[in-house]
């Protein structure tokens, strides 16, 4: 197992390097006048030139590339072009906030989705199953910005049940924080419910049809015992894999939701940074997201390996 983890960590570093390079390329592909973007079109040229000098945007591209890599390695992510403050503290704050939102969304969704998926699989092709599948398909087809908009207007403005701005006051206790985050989390949960439920259902069906399940039943185990001891473990494997990969989509959905609810998480921060061409913020942000994703997949893979010894052994070969 140790070899497994260490190999993965090394490969992760490689991936992070690729990520950093990718972002750097995208951010620098077109010549853009950073000073002009920050100060706006009506600022005098002298101020723009002075700012560019100060930020060092006129240096040759390779120098800037090496500089940014060195910075990342020493965990010095630099200062934001816009606010001139160190980038990392702001990003970590935003990350924590987004994590709370995503966490609440997953917390709502996962138990419900897995239960629904298994339930549907056991009653395959019966009306309940068809209903759950249809519900899942419908829910995962509605983009988050649509459900978020509907929630804001109906629940937030018309009924005034929940706050429209998702940022809770500082030092709020947990129930208050949940109250503020409930609407955006629900908007996201709706989309993921469909996907996870269907994945679980597919995995469960496959396992239910397999030989070892039949063997277990023939051995005399009741359906519930079979379920618990064999089916669930194996059926959840694709589900766990999916949840980890979903971190990427989770983040995408978060951008639109955070914008509608004016919530200051990673999504909104990245959106603003992209519009302002705030390259240090963008690079650091993407790296952070990449790290989170890689940790999530690592944990997911370890969980899968633990659940299914065959895969673990195969990986070590």
């Amino acid at each position, binding site marked *: 197992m140790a070899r497994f983890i260490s190999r993965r960590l090394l490969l992760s570093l490689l991936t992070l390097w690729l990520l950093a390079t990718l972002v750097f390329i995208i951010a620098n592909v077109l010549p853009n006048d950073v000073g002009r973007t920050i100060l706006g079109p009506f600022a005098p040229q002298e*101020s723009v030139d002075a700012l560019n000098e100060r930020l060092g945007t006129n240096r040759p591209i390779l120098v800037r590339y090496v500089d940014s890599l060195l910075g990342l390695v020493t965990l010095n992510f630099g200062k934001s072009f816009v606010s001139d403050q160190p980038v990392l503290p702001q990003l970590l704050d935003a990350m924590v906030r987004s994590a709370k939102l995503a966490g609440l969304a997953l917390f709502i969704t996962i138990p419900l989705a897995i239960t629904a998926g298994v339930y549907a699989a056991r009653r395959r092709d019966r009306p309940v199953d068809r209903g759950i599948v249809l519900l899942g398909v419908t829910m995962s087809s509605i983009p988050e910005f649509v459900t978020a908009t509907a929630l804001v207007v109906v629940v937030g403005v018309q009924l005034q049940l929940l706050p429209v701005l998702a940022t809770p006051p500082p030092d709020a206790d947990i129930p208050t924080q949940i109250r503020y985050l409930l609407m955006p989390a629900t908007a996201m949960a709706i989309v993921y419910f469909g996907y996870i439920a269907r994945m679980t259902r597919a995995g469960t069906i496959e396992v239910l049809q397999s030989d070892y399940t039949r063997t277990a039943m023939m051995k005399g185990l009741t359906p519930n015992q079979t379920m618990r001891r064999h089916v669930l473990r194996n059926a959840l494997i694709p589900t766990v894999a999916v949840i980890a990969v979903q971190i990427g989509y989770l983040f995408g959905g978060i951008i639109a939701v955070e914008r509608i609810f004016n919530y200051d998480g990673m999504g909104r921060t990245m959106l603003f940074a992209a519009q302002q061409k705030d390259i240090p913020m963008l690079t650091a942000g993407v790296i952070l997201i990449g790290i989170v994703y890689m940790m999530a997949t690592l944990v997911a893979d370890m969980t899968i390996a633990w659940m299914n010894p065959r895969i673990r052994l195969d990986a070590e070969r």
Partner: protein
Amino acid sequence: MDYSQLDKVRRSAVPLQLDAVEAFVAGRLSRREFIQRASIVGLSMASIGAVIAACGGTSTSPGASGAKTGGTIRCAVQRPVSVDPVAMEDLGGYGITAQSFEFLCAQNTSEPSGLSPGLALEWTPNADGTVWTFKLRQNAKWMHDGSAFTSADVVATMERLVKAGNSGLKGVLPAGGAVATDANTVTFTLSGGNGNFPYLVSVYNAQTLITPKDYVAGTKFNDRPTGTGAWKLKSYNQASNAVFERNPDWWGGKTPLDGTEWIFFDATGPMITAYQGGQVDAIVQFDVLTGSSLLTDPNFTLIAQPAALHRQIWMRCDTGQFAKKEVRQALAYTFDRPALVQQLFKGRAQVGNDHVIWQNYPYYDSSVPQRTQDIAKAKSLLAAAGVPNLTATLYAGQLQEIPDLCALLKSQAAPAGITLNVSTESLSTFYGAQWCPKAPADPPCSGAKELGIVDYGHRATPDVYLNAALKSKGIWNSSQYNSPAFDAAFTAFQASVGVDAQKAACKNIETILNEDVPVGLPYFYNYLAGNSNKFTGVFSSALGQMSFATTSKV
């Protein structure tokens, strides 16, 4: 007509002030224009009131009576990009810095385009408007150390601004032009006569807030929070909000509210829903189309100020399909201006006549005939120019109603044989790629596309528009307009100081621009802001500077 009152004022007035009084008495200035003009040239509020009363009118004064104290107001504002008082360029920055810092001349709350005493108690021009003497307020204090505000602070601020090339003061105030004649008086010696100088050191030239004499240019407001104003910065988070609390040492007394909170947004839509959901109480600026629900909301107090905010549809006068004057005029004849005003602003805009002299400027001359939509005329002009049909790409940035304006212009121009292909992109890309590309750098903006739409913010005088956008080799002259007649008219305008002279010069400018059409200007739209009815006494300039100093809960 109460001559004794009038004579009292006349006797103590300096020439420029007298000029305004006489123009009003003779009916050449409306009451509103008089208040505006007189306050600029330094006639005191009391004298203005006396003149108006003498001529049989009544002047309104803002009532201030037993207001409830306590509470905080939360307002929604576009996230400020820069809060460096000297270099800031966006409404978020202007509004936030104006909470703590103050100007020599403040906004006149009863006559929004006029002025009233701020850090300067009174100001007086000499006979030809070349020297202005400002008497300063004596009891203002700096928040950071309690020291007194003096003329040294004013002089230092002005020098800093001149050095930074402030667009309003450029060419008007030379280096060393501001001199402290004593601790409470500053004399400004200008490069030439200028009848509008106080505007340039007022709320309308947003960077001219007075900062302490030892302020270092480039310092951000939140790194060194100070000021002489009503609110003290308590906390500033670039990502989310700025919180202010009452400044107990403010010269204006105790503010009714305990504090204000400015919440940052990246788009107008969430601002509106936040207000509707009860989480903000005021909105610093919104556009009609996104906020149309607010216009009919009975619980919302709308602050709608006519302003010189506009869009310029520039057309290259030197090369390309619009080089001929007839083609430019033809395009201008396709604009259905009242329809644009109605559709884009629900009536909250004024029709423009393809020149930058806004109707509410005191020297606006209304004798130039208003151009209206005339497709037949457009067609004949095009035929005369030899291009019965033309296809062009209209470039624009994605800002507020501009993309919708493009759609409407496209459909209005089609019947005349002009096919417009709309190309919009993000604002920051647009400025650098289509409007004023960096290269070629001389003349400035010579790399601009042949047809595009650019936005202009409110200015209290048209000097900046005339100078930068229309004068030959102007720094924002995307149409590459180069007319000796216009340049001469502009110089004449700048040199004129009396009411009549300014009006005559403006008439000339309006006529030339309306004829040459280097830019199409269909409207000047209103600045919209507002607050919930739970609060009263909220005022705003057309530059995002919302004042809560007299705000109280209802």
